[in-house]
C-alpha cells in the first residue's frame, strides 16, 4: 500500500534529509568516527566532543539514502549537549523501536518519526548506521578519557 511508504517518508524525515542539522565537520573534534554499510554504500561520519560526562558538541556528514542521513541529523539534534547516560538510553530505545518493533518512547522526541522503518527490514540498517557509529565514538571517548 502506498500509505506504508507515506508513513515511512514522513515530512519530518524529509525535512532532516533536505536540511540536515549539525551538518559538517567539527574543527578540532577530539573524536572522529565513521561507518559504512557495505551492502548499500551508505556512509556516516561523526565528529564528537565529550566533556563533563556529556556530548558537548557533535557534527556529522556522509552520503546515502534519506533514512540514513535523516537518522543521523535527528541523532545530533537530539543528543547535542546531552549527558552520556541519556545518549546510551536513547540509543537503546531507538534500537528497540527499529529492531524489536517496540512502540516509540516519549524520550525519543522527533526520532519517533523513524517508527515506520521498522516495517522494512532492509532499511533498518540504514537508520541504525549512525547509532552504531555513535556507540563506537562514545566507546573511544571512554578509553581516551
Amino acid at each position, binding site marked *: *500500500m*502506498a500509505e506504508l511508504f507515506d508513513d515511512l517518508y514522513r515530512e519530518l524525515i524529509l525535512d532532516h534529509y533536505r536540511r540536515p542539522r549539525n551538518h559538517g565537520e567539527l574543527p578540532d573534534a577530539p573524536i572522529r568516527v565513521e561507518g559504512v554499510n557495505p551492502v548499500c554504500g551508505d556512509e556516516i561520519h561523526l565528529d564528537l566532543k565529550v566533556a563533563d560526562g556529556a556530548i558537548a558538541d557533535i557534527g556529522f556528514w556522509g552520503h546515502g539514502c534519506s533514512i540514513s542521513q535523516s537518522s543521523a541529523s535527528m541523532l545530533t539534534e537530539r543528543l547535542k549537549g546531552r549527558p552520556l547516560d541519556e545518549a546510551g538510553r536513547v540509543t537503546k530505545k531507538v534500537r528497540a523501536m527499529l529492531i524489536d518493533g517496540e512502540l516509540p518512547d516519549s524520550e525519543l522526541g522527533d526520532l519517533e518519526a523513524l517508527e515506520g522503518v521498522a516495517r522494512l527490514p532492509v532499511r533498518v540498517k540504514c537508520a541504525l548506521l549512525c547509532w552504531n557509529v555513535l556507540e563506537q565514538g562514545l566507546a573511544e571517548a571512554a578509553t581516551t578519557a
Partner: protein
Amino acid sequence: MLDIERLREDFPILHQRVNGHRLVYLDSAATTQKPRAVIDALVNYYETSNANIHRGIHTLAQRATEQYEDTRAKVARFIGASNPEDVVFTRNTTESINLVAHSWGDRFIGEGDEIVISQMEHHSNIVPWQLLAARAGAAVRFASLTPDGHLDVDSLRALIGPRTKLVSLMHMSNVLGTINPVAEFAEMAHRAGALFLLDAAQSVPHLPFDVRATGADFVAFSAHKMLGPTGVGVLWAREGLLEEMDPFMGGGDMIATVREEASTWAEVPHKFEAGTPNIADVIALGAAIEYLEALGMDEVRRHEVALTAYAMDTLERIPGLAIHGPRDPEERGGVVSFEVPGVHPHDMATIADGHGVAIRAGHHCAQLLMRQLRVPATSRASFSVYNGEDDIAPLVEAIEHARKVFA
C-alpha cells in the same frame, strides 16, 4: 513476436499483488522468474526419479543419471558447443570463474604474469583474479571505459602484452547493458598468446549465443539468470583445456583410484564435479533451455531490444532523469540503470516497491564501475521474456511519486 500475455501465464509468481498492486518484476538481471515447466521438472524429478547418479545400478539411479547427462548435452547444444564433455556443472557463474582461477590459474599463472580484466566487471570476475594474483605473485590490470559506457578498446589493447596470460571480460554489462564486441577481444588475447574467459552471465540468457563465434576459451554463466533454478552454474572450456587442468575440489565421483599414497582422477568433466551434484536443478536447467529454445533466442533478443528502446524513450521524458550506458538499444541488453535527481536509489527502490514494482538499487556487485560513474549506487530496471510495455507505466508512476516526495 513473443505473445507476452500468454507467456506470463507460464510464470505463476507474476500473478500476485505486492503492496496492493500487480507485481511488476523488473529485476531479472539479478535473477529471473521460473516458468511452470521448470518448476514441474523439479517436482517430476523428485516424484519419479530421484537417486544419486553415476554409480547406481538400480532403475532410479539410471533414470537420474540419464536426465542429468542429457542436460549436459542440451547445454552444449544451446551454446553451440560440440562436446557435452566440455561442459562442467558448478553452483553459479562465480564458482565457474573461481574454478578456472584455481584449476587453470594455479597451474599456468606465475610470478610476474598478468591477468587483464576491466573496470566494468562484476565482482565475480574481479575478486577471483585478485586472489589468484596474490597466490601467484601475478598482477591484475584493469581496462578503462569510454564516457558513453563502452569498454575502451585502446586501453585494453595497451594493457595486453607478452606478460598477459589471461583476458577475462564480461559479454554484457549487468549495470550499463553494454554488449561488448568479444570476438575482437578474444582475438587480441589470442594474438598475445593469452587465453580468453567470457563472463556470459548476462548474455547467454538474452541473445543467440554461439560459443565458437565468441572465440572464448572459457565461458561462464548461471542457470538462475536464464529461467532456470538457483544452484547451478556452467563452465564451458575449449576442447582439451579441461584435460590440462588440475582438479578443483577433491572427493567422490571425481576420482579414478584412491590410494593412501596418492589418487588419480576421473575423466573430464567428472574430474571437476566432486561429490553429489545438484542433480535436480541441473535437470530443471534442461527444462529452462527447452523453454527458451521453444521461444527462440532470436525472438527473445528482438523482444528485449524493442522493450529496452521503449523503456529508454519513456524514461527519458522524465525531467532530469539520466540513463547510464550506450544510447542505442541495439548495442545493449535489457538493463536500464538510471538516476532520478534528488532521489537516492534506495529510496527509489522502496517507493517503487510501494507500487508493486521490483527494481534493484545498489552497486550491483560493480563497485569499480560505480567509482567510474561517480555514483554510490544506481537504480536498475532489467527485463526478461515476461516483461512488456505495460510494465513501464508503473515504473514511471513510481518515479513520479518519488520525485514528488523528494521535491
